[in-house]
């Protein structure tokens, strides 16, 4: 599930995100309304696409 607009909404509570031009692809951003973490799947001048952030897995680490 994802959004493909320049004005992304939270994928859980639909609250609008305030898009930050400083966001980078792969960065984790948090919904200011419900706290759900999202990953910036794409970030260009024309498009910001968010996906739900991946959950921490067993094999995550240094």
């Amino acid at each position, binding site marked *: 599930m994802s959004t493909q607009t320049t004005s992304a909404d939270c994928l859980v509570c639909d609250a609008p995100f305030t898009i930050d031009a400083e966001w*980078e*692809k*792969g*960065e*984790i951003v948090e919904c200011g309304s419900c706290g759900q973490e999202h*990953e*910036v*799947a794409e970030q*260009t001048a024309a498009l910001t696409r968010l996906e739900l*952030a*991946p959950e921490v*897995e*067993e*094999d*995550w*680490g*240094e």
Partner: protein
Amino acid sequence: MNELEADVLLSVTVLRPEEKLLGAALRARGVDVATVLPPDLGAIVRGGAAARLGLIRNVSHQQALSTARLLEHVGVQTLNRTSAIEVCGDKGLQALVFSRNGVPHPESHLAFSFAQVREAVAAFGWPSVVKPVSGSWGRGVTRMVNEECVDAWIGGRESADAAGKLFPVLVQEYVDKPGHDLRVVVVGAEPVVAIRRVSDHWRTNTTLGADVERVEVTAEMAKLCRGVTDLLGEGFYGVDLVEDRAAGALKVLEVNANPEFAKSSAVHGVDIAAAVADHVTAALALSSAH
């Protein structure tokens, strides 16, 4: 230009502060960097990557290894190398490689069953340590101080993994360290900074709250790090050293192929991202010259 066409592919699971710093340091040196998430790999493999280097920074060990393999197979060198990522992601392999090549390391046994865990712990005596072969941040690392500990570990494990699919595990001698361990950050083949991680807890991971202080890189530390890079190749590593009080010498506890540094850099003041970016820039210049 396709956004995935760049000099360096920065492969991540999520973009942590470390990767933001690395990307910024590379771009400041005029290097084109494209951030690559796992879904991007299909296009890269189908289209053939024009990139010259894959900087593997996936926080998922499995993703790091599979991404490095794919990139190497489409002709893109990776940092770290696939073979190094494979060894660093498996504490059992590390123990084997270090043992066979004379790198000082706590004595370790791979156990493939609950019975073998009991046997290995009994052989080491109390205390000894059981740890998963893959995993990080001190997760799952358990100190066995008596038979009841072993019973509890096995009981918990049996309820979560009755079929024993999560074996092997590593059973290791407990190193009586002086309340701290050491982390040396290696870039290329050079130890660029060493920190002491101090904790009241026997696990001294910074993620578990250990305090960090900078120490000088001694000749002994440098020699151990050189032993590691001689085996794994030049790269970007966090080499964890532990002082064995009984032996009065350092041992290589483990090597991390994806070291975190953002928080500790603020304490020790060494710009790790810049050091890595300089190393990558030099490697790119070298490959251009050939």
